[in-house]
């Protein structure tokens, strides 16, 4: 178990590092996909099979595809951008190291820092419970419906903005 965790953690962190440093945007997108697979494997290790599948369906199947399309649409720019990082990258690195150190010390002082996972109760179907929780008014009915409204807002907003881009493209012709 520990070995598996270390392998997946190394994949996740290594490819995440490549995402933020690699030069070609399309490679960054593919490294992101590797990271996402690593995270999905970690979910599977945590017995959260539903989350692992959702991770692949939503992130790899949809969000990564959207990223690749966007990169392809704006690619002309990418070909000649020499340095991937801006001039403040030193400060940024310091900042993120500090944030990691801060998070680490915070966690260190937490009492439950080295807790082990409790045994999962046998015969509990997480998905049924999840479905029940999502539509029970005392539980998460409101977030469930609000999520739908959020997605609707995102769709309308993005379509509105992209419509602009489409008209622009037609005007150029």
């Amino acid at each position, binding site marked *: 178990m520990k070995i598996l965790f270390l392998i997946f953690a190394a994949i*996740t962190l290594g490819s995440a590092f490549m995402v933020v440093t690699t030069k070609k945007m399309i490679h960054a997108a593919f490294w992101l996909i590797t990271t996402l697979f690593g995270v999905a494997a970690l979910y599977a290790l945590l017995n959260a099979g539903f989350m692992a599948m959702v991770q692949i369906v939503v992130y790899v199947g949809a969000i990564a595809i959207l990223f690749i399309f966007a990169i392809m649409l704006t690619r002309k720019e990418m070909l000649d951008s020499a340095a991937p990082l801006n001039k403040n990258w030193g400060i940024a690195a310091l900042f993120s190291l500090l944030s990691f150190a801060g998070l680490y010390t915070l966690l260190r002082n937490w009492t439950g820092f080295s807790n082990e996972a409790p045994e999962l109760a046998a015969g509990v179907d997480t998905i049924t419970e999840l479905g029940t929780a999502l539509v029970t008014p005392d539980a998460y009915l409101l977030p469930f419906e609000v999520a739908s409204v959020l997605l609707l807002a995102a769709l309308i907003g993005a379509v509105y903005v992209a419509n602009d881009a489409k008209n622009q493209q037609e005007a150029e012709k």
Partner: protein
Amino acid sequence: MIPISWYLILAAALFSIGLFGVLARKNAVAILLGVELMLNAVNINLVTFWRYNAPETVTGQVFAIIVFAVAAAEVAVGLALIISIYRNRNTIVADDLDMMKW
């Protein structure tokens, strides 16, 4: 078995890498990639806490699913904006986007 700390440290590291990406990358799409890494780190934390602290309830998973929805919405609108800006100003270098400056 794996103690909870391993997952939390992994999530913290992933979050920091994502933060670095957001702060240091030039390309606006790359900045969004960094944001995705940060959201993933959050999700790892949520699922970890679900597994280690409250596996009998599903709160952590519900939260994580909502984070998925938020990430999707954020990417959809963010990338649409970037494409629109690219069409209008022919650049997606974040530092050049200073139309709100004076």
